[in-house]
């Protein structure tokens, strides 16, 4: 009996109760699964599972509502911060988070993102930035790097005609309504732990009605970057991090 061999003092890894048993649909090596888990662990450890309402976006994480074992709403493309605003205004005592990708949050939903942050809406925005549209098959995102190839920038992103990659976290950090803005990754154990700590801090600030918290997770997309998971993490370190440096962007004074 395998379970009898594991004594409590030896137990180092356990599935979080804040996630369901559904099998994730994400591609092998993708950062979404880890980001989900860290968010779920933060929810479980803060004991707010019954008090949390999440909003899934349109994009790769469109089915996130199957995985988080909290009440979840699926939003139209880009509208998650508006949906979260509606929820938070009628249930201010609940913990609310949105989970959005770069196309959702920084292209079609830019207005909703900026205005929710500007109003200082008391919820957490989790922003997964992998520099590409994953679900629709590798099109250029607002965060696609200069000269980076995608199916809609097959010769690489030309910033003269396609604009520069958008640093949305730096942008919203300028707004008085945001309280805590940070950029992390989930590609090494150390970074995974930092990301989870950031999520927990953000929920704590939400409890204290401090304003909007936005945690960006720079992530990989092995499938659409057309790399192995290991290669994609290396490419991310060499190319994404110089443009999207990790660390705190705005911290409480």
């Amino acid at each position, binding site marked *: 009996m395998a379970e009898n061999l594991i004594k409590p003092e030896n137990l180092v890894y356990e599935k979080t109760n804040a996630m369901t048993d559904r099998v994730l649909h994400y591609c092998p090596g993708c950062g979404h699964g880890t980001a989900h888990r860290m968010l779920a662990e933060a929810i479980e450890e803060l004991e707010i599972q019954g008090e949390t309402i999440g909003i899934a976006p349109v994009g790769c994480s469109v*089915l996130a509502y199957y995985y988080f074992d909290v009440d979840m709403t699926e*939003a*139209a493309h880009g509208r998650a911060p*508006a949906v979260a605003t509606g929820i938070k205004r009628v*249930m201010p005592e*609940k913990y609310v988070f949105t989970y959005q990708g770069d196309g959702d949050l920084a292209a079609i939903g830019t207005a909703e993102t900026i*205005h929710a942050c500007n109003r200082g809406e008391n919820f957490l925005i989790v922003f997964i930035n992998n520099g590409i549209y994953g679900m629709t098959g590798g099109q250029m995102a607002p965060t696609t790097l200069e000269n980076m190839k995608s199916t809609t920038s097959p010769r690489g992103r030309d910033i003269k005609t396609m604009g520069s990659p958008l640093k949305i976290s730096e942008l919203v950090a300028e707004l008085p309504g945001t309280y805590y803005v940070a950029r992390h990754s989930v590609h090494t154990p150390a970074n995974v732990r930092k990301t989870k700590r950031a999520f927990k801090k953000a929920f704590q600030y939400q409890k204290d009605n401090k304003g909007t918290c936005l945690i960006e997770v720079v992530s990989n997309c092995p499938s659409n970057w057309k790399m192995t998971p290991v290669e994609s993490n290396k490419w991310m370190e060499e190319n994404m991090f110089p443009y999207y440096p990790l660390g705190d962007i705005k911290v409480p004074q």
Partner: protein
Amino acid sequence: MKELRLMKGNEAFAEAAIRAGTDAYFGYPITPQSEVIEYLMAQNPEERTGMAVLQAESEIAAINMIYGAAGCGKKAMTSSSSPGISLKQEGLSYIAGAELPCVVLNVVRGGPGLGTIQPSQSDYFQAVKGGGHGDYKLIVLAPATVQETVDFVKLAFDLAFKYRNPVMILSDGIIGQMMEKVELFEQIPRSDEEYDWATQGKKPGKDHTIITSLQLKPEEQEKVNLRLQAKYREVEKNEVLYESYNTEDADYLFVAFGSCGRITQKAMEMARKKGYKVGQIRPKTLYPFPVEVINKLSDQVKGILTVEMNAGQMVEDVRLAVDGKTPVEYFGRYGGMIPSPDEILNAFEQKFIGGK
């Protein structure tokens, strides 16, 4: 206590919203309905009832805030006018698809495009045929008076929650802007009701609630559509409302809704004075449309004149209801122009009596 007041249509709507126990209003200014949010802000409903009121950054954001609040099982509403309602169509499709209740007021102005700020009924098609993408329906109420605007707020929420479907109150710039005597209903307390379909926080030992309009398997999505269609058949069976005037002995029938219905009523009275036995049907629900009564009356009358402040939209539904049994003609003004009773009477005589 019931209360009599002289009020502008838009302000009366806003007052009725507070009194109906609405939990949240999200909106964006647009003429001719900005008085709704102005009145709400002035009334400070946060203090009066705890109702949340927020000026959103756009119509799109406003309807998605409604989606969020409605998903929590709360009474949520928005208001706008034609170009703004176009922007809300995406959200309305999602709300209908996710089967959530909400109330939307459209104070219609003339179009297309930026059009005019003057009254019109040119959003009839958009309101009754769905409006956004996918097979869905809004329940559509058409007030003809400030009083009906107020009464329909309560009715709209009742229907929205009964069927878990968005309800549109299709008003226009005349009713929104004019002042009339109105009897206000008593304050209804806001509700804390819990619903198993609402995201109100996962209960211990129960499954988490998911609100979505996405089904990737076509078999599942067809099931959703079948459920929606079954619901719409129920709505059609149960919720038809109309006003009928002088139909008992009528040789001719006018069909007109909303403010245009009132103008047409005057034309009907003038026709009666001239000796023409004209009756009138004023649909109060545009969806569900009063098909049965119009079909029945088409056995009796020699012809039907549909009068609308648009280029002829409801006339299509009247023709479907009549099913070829009697001639159906249309008369209307549009682009913000309002037909006079004389013009309507003249059109009736031209089309059915033979003119002068």
